[in-house]
């Protein structure tokens, strides 16, 4: 019956539709590119107009990402000279020129030697597909609607502009989604407001780390990739040779298994094992931005690290931070027992408790920052309601880490609750019933039956929780940036800062290895405690 559905006529119809779609798509792409060209020219003209009639701005359409490296000097001086307060505006200017959705052009003003006057603009042009591939789908979908719209209103509204109708359609879509003019007006208003308010320390727009080029990594990276593939081959050969003489069937099974494992295996080598060794290698070299020679320096990075009070501070903070794990476990066990009751609607309640686990850390960090607000935050309001005094949770070095721990507990509670729930449901009812018949009260049943049986679960949660908490980053990055007074500076944030803000990749790699060693120790400890043997397939 279903075969009747795919008749030759239908196939032809589908083919025609496809071809039509492709042709229209190509047309849209072409007109889109032209429209963008026109817009870029217009942008250049308006820059020129603001500097008087006889001024000619430099316009250098260059391709990214190569271009970004080439003009990085320009961009860098621009970033350097305006200072943190105006940096907000610089970032937003970039936003503005990118405000047109999927814009293929970015214009960056070029300053003169004393970095005061704008003498021109550099226009960066992205690869064409990057600007077009994604909107194409949207455009194709909206095309029909937009074309009708365009015929009715948009064309008439701007008769004086001699642009192709597709451009108007494109602009209409861009306006619909981003609102070019609206966004411009709104953004400039916002900018004025933002400039008027003195930004608190953590409000600074972050220094864009990638605007600086990373020198001399190409050849090395290629070598590394080569090494990875060589290692893969060697590994495979070793496995092959080491195995005793096998029958044809066994050999065939091996070949099949390896072909099934190939995708993950290659990724393992290129993105996990290779990098791990590469980190070790990096940590033995002074891989900095300014230094172009990178001699072997042995353990100097590690020695520096051990004598760096900031490292010890970060380690201490991370260790303190992990304390939230056992606290959360107690809460989670309580919640699991509450939510294990055979009542209607329990599923909904469990979902509510589990919810924080799935949502994004950045959003969580933002809402908690608001809840922690010293003057208008919800938490301080509640504290004052019951007669306490408000605390500047994130602004006070004494409480900032605790505040982060509270958020983490809130996030992790749902996950631990679900795991405990599984553990609770795995306890045979007969055991509890027997205890009840023996006259044990609820507390005794818990301490004598439930808790001992849950011990493996608790251990698992404790160790994995600690391993996870050693890797905390997003909360710190958004909420405190390691402050105030480095009281929330944790190891991963240190790694990020050393590598991407100070560009000390060698030192950051040493830090990474220290973190790895700690985590490895914890994992081995976990296996030991859980006394679980690795079971092999079979």
């Amino acid at each position, binding site marked *: 019956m279903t075969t009747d559905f795919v008749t030759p006529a239908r196939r032809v119809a589908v083919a025609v539709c496809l071809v039509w779609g492709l042709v229209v798509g190509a047309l849209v792409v072409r007109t889109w590119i032209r429209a963008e060209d026109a817009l870029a020219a217009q942008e250049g003209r308006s820059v020129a107009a603001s500097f008087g009639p006889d001024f000619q701005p430099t316009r250098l359409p260059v391709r990214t*990402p190569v271009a970004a490296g080439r003009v990085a000097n320009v961009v860098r001086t621009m970033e350097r000279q305006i200072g943190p307060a105006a940096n907000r505006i610089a970032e*937003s200017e970039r*936003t503005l020129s*990118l405000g047109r959705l*999927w814009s293929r052009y*970015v214009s960056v003003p070029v300053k003169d030697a004393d970095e005061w006057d704008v003498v021109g603009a550099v226009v960066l042009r*992205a690869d064409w597909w*990057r600007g077009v591939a*994604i909107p194409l789908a*949207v455009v194709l979908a909206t095309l029909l609607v937009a074309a009708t719209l365009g015929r009715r209103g948009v064309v008439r509204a701007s008769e004086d502009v001699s642009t192709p109708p597709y451009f108007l359609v494109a602009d209409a879509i861009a306006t619909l989604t*981003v609102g070019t003019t609206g966004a411009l007006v709104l*953004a400039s208003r916002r900018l004025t407001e*933002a400039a008027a*308010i003195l*930004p*608190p320390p953590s409000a600074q727009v*972050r220094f864009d780390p990638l605007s600086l080029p*990373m020198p001399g*990594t*190409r050849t*090395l990276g290629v070598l590394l990739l080569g090494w990875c593939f060589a290692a893969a081959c060697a590994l495979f050969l070793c*496995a092959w040779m080491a*195995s005793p003489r*096998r029958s044809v069937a066994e050999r065939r099974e091996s070949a*099949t298994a*390896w072909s099934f494992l190939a*995708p*993950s295996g290659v990724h*393992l080598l290129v*993105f996990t*094992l290779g*990098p791990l060794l*590469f980190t070790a290698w990096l940590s033995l070299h002074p891989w900095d931005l300014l230094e172009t020679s990178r001699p072997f320096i042995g353990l100097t990075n590690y020695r520096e690290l051990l004598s760096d009070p900031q490292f010890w501070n970060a380690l201490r903070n991370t260790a303190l931070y992990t304390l939230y794990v056992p606290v959360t476990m107690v809460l989670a066990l309580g919640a699991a027992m509450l939510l294990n*009751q055979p*009542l209607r609607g329990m599923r909904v*309640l469990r*979902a509510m*408790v589990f*919810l*924080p686990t*799935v949502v*994004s850390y*950045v*959003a969580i960090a933002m*809402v908690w920052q608001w809840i922690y*607000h010293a*003057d*208008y935050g*919800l938490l301080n309001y509640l504290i004052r309601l019951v007669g306490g005094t408000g605390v500047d949770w994130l602004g006070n070095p004494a409480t900032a880490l605790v505040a982060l721990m509270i958020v983490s507990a809130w996030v992790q509670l749902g996950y631990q609750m679900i795991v405990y*729930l*599984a553990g609770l449901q795995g306890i045979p009812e007969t055991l509890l019933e027997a205890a009840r018949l023996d006259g044990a009260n609820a507390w005794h049943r818990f301490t004598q039956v439930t808790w001992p049986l849950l011990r493996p*679960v608790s251990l*698992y949660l404790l160790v994995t929780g600690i391993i996870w908490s*050693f890797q905390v980053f*997003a909360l710190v990055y958004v909420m405190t940036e390691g402050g105030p007074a480095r009281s929330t500076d944790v190891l*991963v944030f240190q790694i990020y800062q050393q590598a991407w803000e100070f560009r000390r990749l060698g030192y*950051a790699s040493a830090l*990474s290895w220290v*973190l790895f060693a700690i985590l490895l120790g914890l994992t081995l400890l976990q296996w030991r405690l859980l006394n679980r043997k690795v079971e092999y*397939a079979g």
Partner: protein
Amino acid sequence: MPARGRRVGGAVAAVAVATVMVVPFLWMVSTALMGEFEVLQYPPPMLPATPRWANFRDALTTLPFARFFANSLIVAAFTVTAQVMAGALGGYALARFRFAGQRAVFALYLGALMIPGVVLLIPRFLIVDALGAVDTMAGLVSAELVSFWGIFMMRQFFVSLPRELEDAARLDGAGEWAVFWRIVLPSAVPGLATFALFAFIDSWKSLLWPLVVTRSMSLRTVEVGIASFHGLYYANWPYQMAAAVTALVPVLVVFLLTQRHFTRGVQLTGLR
């Protein structure tokens, strides 16, 4: 009746716990609908005087959020597909085959599970840079194409599946690939779906790698996008909350639609 009283008490306590857990979300939504200066009052207003839906429009048009969402979706599509495929293949191989180098592979994969992504951040960046893929979609996606956690999850799943059907197909002369595609994959759909959900959530939540590997506005994901929005509009809480709410919606929808799978997934992997 004390038993009844205890049951009611338990139910009330359960509801209370769940309510406390969602308070931050409600607070987020409420703030998102208030005026910029309406929120700066003491005592804080619980609900907006008049809901300002325009906050969402204004907040979302200051940065190209539509683009951020498209990027996040593209990244999620790539990573979820790749992770599920690699996970199914690898998990099946580990669960069913006996092959040369099996111990080594098992140990290596388990080892990969222990290595935190943070440690690999710098070299991964350098490798992606060497491939010329920094600040491209390929670079953004490349690091997360395989999840070793997922491979082990799928292995557990395949171990729990009966193998009679596969053996029957083998006796009928089907090759290993045919067995995998025709027999194993269709019966593994529940496991694959659970894994895909986790992969989607993880991909949506990931911040550090996209932050490091992209530089242009047009390649930012939602997470990086709202993080930079947060830096720009620090003082405007309703805008921030509006952006945060918007970022939450896709994950929230996915979670509410598939909540059962999550519980099962956690239990499948949490208690191996």
